[in-house]
């Protein structure tokens, strides 16, 4: 008789990615495995590094907005919002109220669209093929509205420092109201289909647990942090735009596992839809752009502003030297910081769970690598 301890065992290195469907882009993780158990994870990023921050130094402030569209290509409008808010701070202008309402409506719609994409692809990661159909159907409706308002399905370039490019079309309010009804139904369908599914629960409950203090130390933000029971949401804690006028809750999880991170996003969809309804009720008339010069030269100085992206706290640190181009633009990429926690979450789990854990972080590689 021989027991396991008498065998000589070797830890194996297993390469996952960069061309692996479950990595949502070009992300590579090297798993150190002992049989089926993951002992350590070494993430490798940088395959999509385009030098956005350096490029921004040779563009005028208005042109940088287009770069921000491409940083996180799932939530373009949220990213534009982050940059134009930093730009407004450094230029010392404030967008008119109507423009702020338009931005918040679009940003929240984009948050729902991003979460729907997450729900669909996360289900695929775990072997459920149907939810992605529902998720994409609803996301497509939102993209159609974006196309109607901004002229582009994805790379909108719609927000400006001091307002928005153009006023919304006349049928905007009824269109959005109808859209909210349809999307809410779609989200409910996804919710019923997936959230309490026995197999789904088995794959996500108690998997990839991270506790609050560790999550904060790793710099996790957004649903990934709130899943661990830390109620940190920039919209509530450091309010910007017109968020203080809206009535909404920030869902917080308690276990810090994959299911909590997933379900928070589902709940956030409902909250966002109700926020948009409130915005439409309060939607004011008025100008959409603050007075200002097209090629503006802000005073030399530094600002830091952050806002809540679907993936977390998206910060922009802007350094101006008084010319028409920023001296330094630094993005705080939420997915990048969330990935720091990946190794902590994955250690000790199975290889199959590594996919579930990575998926639950909802990374966008464009933003991780910039």
């Amino acid at each position, binding site marked *: 008789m021989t027991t396991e301890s008498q065998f000589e065992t070797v830890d194996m290195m297993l390469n996952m990615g960069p061309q692996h469907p479950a990595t949502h882009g070009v992300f590579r993780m090297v798993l150190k495995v002992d049989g089926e158990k993951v002992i350590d994870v070494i993430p490798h*990023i*940088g395959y999509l*590094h385009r*030098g956005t*921050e*350096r*490029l921004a130094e*040779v563009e005028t402030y208005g042109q940088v907005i287009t770069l921000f569209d491409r940083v996180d290509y799932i939530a373009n409008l949220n990213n534009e919002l982050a940059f134009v808010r930093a730009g407004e*701070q*450094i230029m*010392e202008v404030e967008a008119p109220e109507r423009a702020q309402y338009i931005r918040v409506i679009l940003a929240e719609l984009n948050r729902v669209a991003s979460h729907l994409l997450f729900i669909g692809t996360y289900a695929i990661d775990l072997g459920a093929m149907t939810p992605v159909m529902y998720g994409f159907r609803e996301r497509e409706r939102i993209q159609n509205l974006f196309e109607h308002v901004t002229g582009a399905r994805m790379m909108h370039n719609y927000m400006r420092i001091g307002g928005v490019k153009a006023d919304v079309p006349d049928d905007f309010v009824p269109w959005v109201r109808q859209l909210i009804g349809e999307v809410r139904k779609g989200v409910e369908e996804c919710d019923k289909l997936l959230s309490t599914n026995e197999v789904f629960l088995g794959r996500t409950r108690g998997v990839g647990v991270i506790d609050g*203090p*560790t999550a*904060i*130390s*790793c*710099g996790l933000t957004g649903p990934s942090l709130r899943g661990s029971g*830390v109620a*940190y949401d920039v919209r509530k*804690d*450091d309010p910007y735009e017109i968020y203080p006028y809206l009535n909404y809750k920030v869902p917080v999880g308690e276990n810090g596992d994959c299911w909590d991170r997933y379900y928070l996003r589902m709940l956030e969809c409902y909250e966002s839809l109700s926020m948009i309804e409130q915005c439409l009720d309060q939607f004011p008339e008025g100008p959409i752009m603050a007075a200002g010069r097209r090629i503006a*030269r*802000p*005073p*030399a*100085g*530094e*600002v*830091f502003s*952050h806002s809540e992206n679907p993936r977390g*706290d998206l*910060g922009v*640190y802007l*350094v*101006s*030297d*008084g*010319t028409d181009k920023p*001296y*330094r633009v*630094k993005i*705080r990429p939420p997915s*990048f*910081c969330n*990935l*720091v*926690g990946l190794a*902590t979450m994955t250690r000790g789990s199975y290889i199959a769970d590594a996919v579930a854990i990575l998926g639950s972080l909802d990374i966008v590689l464009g933003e991780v*690598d*910039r």
Partner: protein
Amino acid sequence: MTEQDPKAAAEAPKEAAAPAEKPARHGPPIVIAEEVLNERGEQTAAQLASTLGTLVLDSAGREDNPWVRVDAKELHAAAKKCRDGEIGMDMLNLMLAVDWVDRIQMIYVLYSTTNNRKVILKADLPAESPAIDSLTDLWEAATWYERETHDLFGVDFPGNSDMSPLLLYEGFEGHPGLKSYPLNDYEEW
């Protein structure tokens, strides 16, 4: 400049009596932003000043983001005080380097999730062989930020055990974040 105000042209020679210095750049004059803290920022700044005490070299801030400049050697101590002190800055929100050509400035944005305040720590490093103590023992978030800063700006972080390239590929030469790095004409890979 084809159109010139005749008055300004008449006044110009008087000023030019002193040895004329060549203007460094053309275009409108640079305006420097006024750094004014709001009420919330003042409170945080006072708390921060009492936490750091004599470590502070310089301080100011805008809106609700007060900043302090500390000596590069003292940065780790200052960050530790911010984390463990009453001010409770438990999250390293952002870390970046700014290349001012004659020096490299490290900027750390710390955030407190308990009382929702942020403070900014700054430290100046020499442009040649910049190095600053790693903060990986205080925040795990620093690991990747430091690797990224090492890639793009060539800043060394003694104390960070893994300094392999993060965003750039193995064997990349130069530091593309620096102002001296060419934006085109580099070797295509």
